[in-house]
């Protein structure tokens, strides 16, 4: 198990499978607001749902409408369990507040290099501690 500490932006607890995007994500345009599936053809995660995952990506980008998309997903029960960013920004922060999803950023670069799709990740959005349990 590896342990990291980041900055808490939105509080909460979550634990689940990691979904890792190396690219920044614009929820408006890149993620289907009804199904939670990544519809950005340029992203290697194309076709995969963010729903129920600990969604990890460098930062948000694009339209501020992205916040509404995250909110909508939570109403449909299709939102991620938590979001982890390298350096977050308001679109994601506001979306996570509305959807009541823990958001942690400023995790060490080492975390982004280590975590893999499918790893079991525990997110403590109070202490800021993130634990990775690798699949193997």
């Amino acid at each position, binding site marked *: 198990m590896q342990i990291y500490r980041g900055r808490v*932006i939105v509080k909460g607890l979550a634990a689940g499978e990691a979904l890792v995007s190396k690219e920044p994500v614009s929820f408006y345009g890149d993620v289907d607001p009804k199904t939670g599936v990544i519809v950005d053809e340029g992203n290697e995660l194309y076709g995969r749902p963010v729903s129920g995952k600990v969604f990890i990506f460098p930062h948000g980008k694009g339209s*501020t409408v992205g916040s*509404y*998309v995250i909110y*909508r997903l939570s109403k449909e029960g299709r939102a991620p369990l938590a979001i982890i960013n390298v350096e977050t*920004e308001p679109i994601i922060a*506001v979306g996570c507040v509305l959807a009541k999803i823990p958001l942690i950023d400023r995790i060490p670069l080492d975390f982004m290099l280590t975590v893999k799709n499918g790893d079991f990740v525990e997110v403590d959005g109070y202490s800021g501690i993130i634990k990775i349990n690798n699949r193997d």
Partner: protein
Amino acid sequence: MFLTRDEERMLDGDYGEVARKCMEIIVAIGEVFEAKKLIGIKSAHISGISYKNIGDAGIELLRDFVKLSARASVSATTNPAGMDLEHWQEMGIPASFAEKQLEVTKSLSAIGVKETYTCTPYLSKNRPSKGEHLAWAESSAVVYANSVLGARTNRESGISALASAIVGKTPLYGMHLDECRVAKLHVQLDHAPKTPSEYSLIGYMIGSLTNDDVVSISMPNKAISSCLKALSAGLATSGRVSMFTINSKSGFVEKVKIELKDIERVKGSIGCGGEDITHAFVGCPHASLKELKVLANLLKKRRVRKDRELWVFTSRTTYRRAESSGLVSKLLSAGVKVFRDTCMVVAPLDEINVKSVVVDSAKAYHYIKRNFKGIRAFFADTRELVDFVSI
């Protein structure tokens, strides 16, 4: 971040769920930007009004806020909606869209905002004074407020502006702080721009040159307000700029020059090469009274061709003034359509059969190109634009 006891109570829910949720939004943003505390605001300007942009998720969010009895506690104006709220049929807006858009405005009305539906709040019931702290969304208005009016606002999102409108506060960071209102890049313009269109294009070019919030510009002539309005919109569109300073003297880290040939090159690349254009849209940002006069003058002794459309977008406030001075009649008799409450950036152009369009605003050009892959868009100076669609 430091919170007063009252703010802590609000965050704990002592003032109700909607205040708690709004505080949570504002505090989260404050944490992201390491703000030391919150400050009170004089006004808010809320974007995220068009159904085309916010969709059913936006309708749900606003409805949820209304259910929790959300009310604006400071003066708050609104950005354009996806249609002329009264004359949407004339725009060709489908009833299904109209129904959804009206649900948005119904919620806004319940929240008690000033329903101005314009991107130029400073011309419409929300003109801030120098030094006032605001929470404004609509990046073109943010740049104008910071740069021309000397007020202080960050580039808020629709939701953060709404939250600020409700609790009357915003985090103290960025443009609220003297030390952040300083340019590192200086852009020297040797060519004197003459029209708002030119300013819009120059702004658009400059905005893409920097990742900073503030840019300094020097130019040989003095710009009038419609030109500064267009400059603000262009600047805000292509990057992150929140403010410009004009002809300030010193302290720059980097200098860049823009020459006439640079401007001509960009203009040529987005201009219309003799294509058949069916629609011409003017009013991004919303046309001021002066700009409506200019348009009417360009159409003196001319008329819009029968197989063409020339639409101008403006605010309700400006429309009323233009109507009482006979200006609207002049435009209508030249075949122009004058619409309020909306614009070509946030209206569902694909649902109203727009196929090829010329605009005189770099911002409009940028967004139409980006949002509607199936529409051919071009940029031209206002005079040229009028030539394309009238005889």
